[in-house]
């Protein structure tokens, strides 16, 4: 549980964050979205005290983060940034083991944890553990960066534009992987991005910021259907809205009985995927299969159209 209470920060004459309060539940992914200069990064960095707030406070599981030295706080909070920030003079294994080493773990325990994380992030231990970051691809570096942030099993992970340096295809995979890993580890994630698509794809809740103010803090659904201000609507891009609604609703929640022809789509797909497939293959309804491949129902165009509407 992270409670942010009336946080404000002013740099020189400019107010970067202006009286922001929000609370983040355990195991949630909260995405802070805004344009550059909106104060989103400043807000994130005040959580682990890389920036000290002028006023207000942050409670982590009920405890004020300002009790105790900042560097000890940061060892309990994962931190991953754009461009990964790996230590170029340390191997992949040493990079991932940074926080365990700072915490004084035994070597064997750190080594085991490094191997576990590398497996989780699909990095072959024998191939990559002793390589230097410069010898890795951008996508691999990014995964090592996140693995390093998760090394000491922090309850909270802060991510600042973590996928910003990746090309679109690798980015989509990285987002899906993060989502899957988060489901497994139940880590609370606070992620900053300027990309509303990323926010909708990842966020359980989205905090929209502009000029230091928190404009809206709600579920993706709510934000798309009822944007709090014109600015939030603009960020969403009005022409995209029906498709955005579809893109975070899974097919499995809208199963209908009945038959449909053609190849099935998985029930984990979104309604947007279903719409695309239906339009592309010219079908009125698609069969839906569960993870084992058994057809469990169908999804019809009528449902898709209904769900894409504002009050669907």
């Amino acid at each position: 549980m992270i409670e942010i209470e009336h946080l404000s920060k002013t740099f020189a004459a400019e107010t970067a964050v202006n009286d922001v309060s929000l609370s983040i539940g355990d195991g949630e992914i909260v995405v802070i979205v805004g344009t550059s200069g909106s104060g989103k990064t400043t807000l994130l960095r005040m959580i682990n005290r890389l920036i000290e707030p002028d006023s207000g406070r942050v409670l982590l599981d009920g405890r004020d983060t300002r009790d105790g030295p900042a560097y000890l706080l940061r060892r309990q909070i994962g931190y991953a940034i754009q461009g990964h920030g790996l230590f170029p003079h340390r191997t992949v294994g040493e990079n991932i083991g940074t926080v365990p080493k700072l915490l004084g773990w035994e070597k064997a325990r750190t080594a085991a944890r490094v191997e576990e994380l590398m497996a989780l992030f699909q990095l072959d231990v024998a191939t990559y553990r002793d390589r230097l970051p410069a010898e890795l691809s951008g996508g691999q570096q990014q995964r090592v960066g996140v693995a390093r942030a998760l090394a000491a099993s922090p309850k909270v992970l802060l991510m600042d534009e973590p996928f910003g340096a990746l090309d679109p295809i690798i980015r989509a995979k990285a987002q899906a992987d993060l989502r899957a890993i988060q489901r497994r580890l139940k880590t609370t994630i606070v992620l900053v991005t300027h990309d509303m698509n990323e926010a909708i794809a990842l966020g359980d809740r989205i905090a929209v910021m502009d000029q230091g103010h928190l404009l809206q803090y709600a579920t993706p659904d709510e934000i798309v259907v009822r944007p709090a201000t014109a600015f939030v609507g603009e960020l969403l891009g009005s022409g995209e809205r029906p498709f955005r609604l579809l893109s975070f609703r899974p097919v499995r929640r809208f199963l209908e009985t009945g038959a449909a022809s053609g190849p099935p789509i998985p029930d984990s797909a979104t309604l947007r995927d279903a719409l695309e497939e239906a339009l592309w293959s010219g079908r009125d309804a698609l069969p839906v299969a569960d993870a084992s491949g058994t057809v469990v129902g169908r999804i019809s165009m009528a449902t898709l159209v209904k769900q894409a509407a504002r009050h669907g």
Partner: protein
Amino acid sequence: MKPGTVVRIVVLVLLVAFLVTPQSFAFVFAPLTHDGQPAIYTQNSLLNLTLSHIGLVVAATLVATLVAVGLAILVTRPSGAEFLPLSRMIANTGQTFPPVAVLALAVPILGFGSGPTLVALFLYGLLPIFENALTGLTTIAPDIEDSARGTGMSETQRLWQVELPLALPLILAGIRLSVTISIGTATIGSTVAASTLGEAIIAGLINSNLAFVAQGGLVVGVLAILSYDGLRALERRFARRVGAR
């Protein structure tokens, strides 16, 4: 083996052979003498002169490195930032003073011998190391600094685990410059009775014996080239490790 490496090894072997048995190379220097002058300097053994020459340079560079890197660390900490202009001034002054002037000023205080030379080499060696260390410590990529802080390193841990290792190639480059300059500069220490290869050169100049000048100068030159080369190889190894990102 690369041709460059072969050349280096041959040069090193020749140098050692010459220093251990200078007389066997007398035929090389004999053409430079006239009126039956000796071809090899023998007042002091060339080997001892070389060793004490190297000793002076190493001692002065070690102290200069400690002081320069220490100063650079101090002025790059938030608490020491205000000393930056002062440290720059000290290092620059060291470089502006001609070593001869330092020798002349130091002799009345420290007397004849190695002392004044050590001081001159130390002062002269400070600036390149200080400036390089400063550059190395202040040009660390912001995202790496950010990560170091974000992972929870204390200020001391950041210095030892991130900043100094990343600045090391630049610091080594400074040491290399300083060593090369010092090897040449140390020769003038013999004007105030420091035991260096300058002794052979000065004796040659006084007695107009070109052979002495040549052997002193050659050994100094070879020492400078070999140490420059060796330090650069070391520097490259570290630079590769710190890597282009």
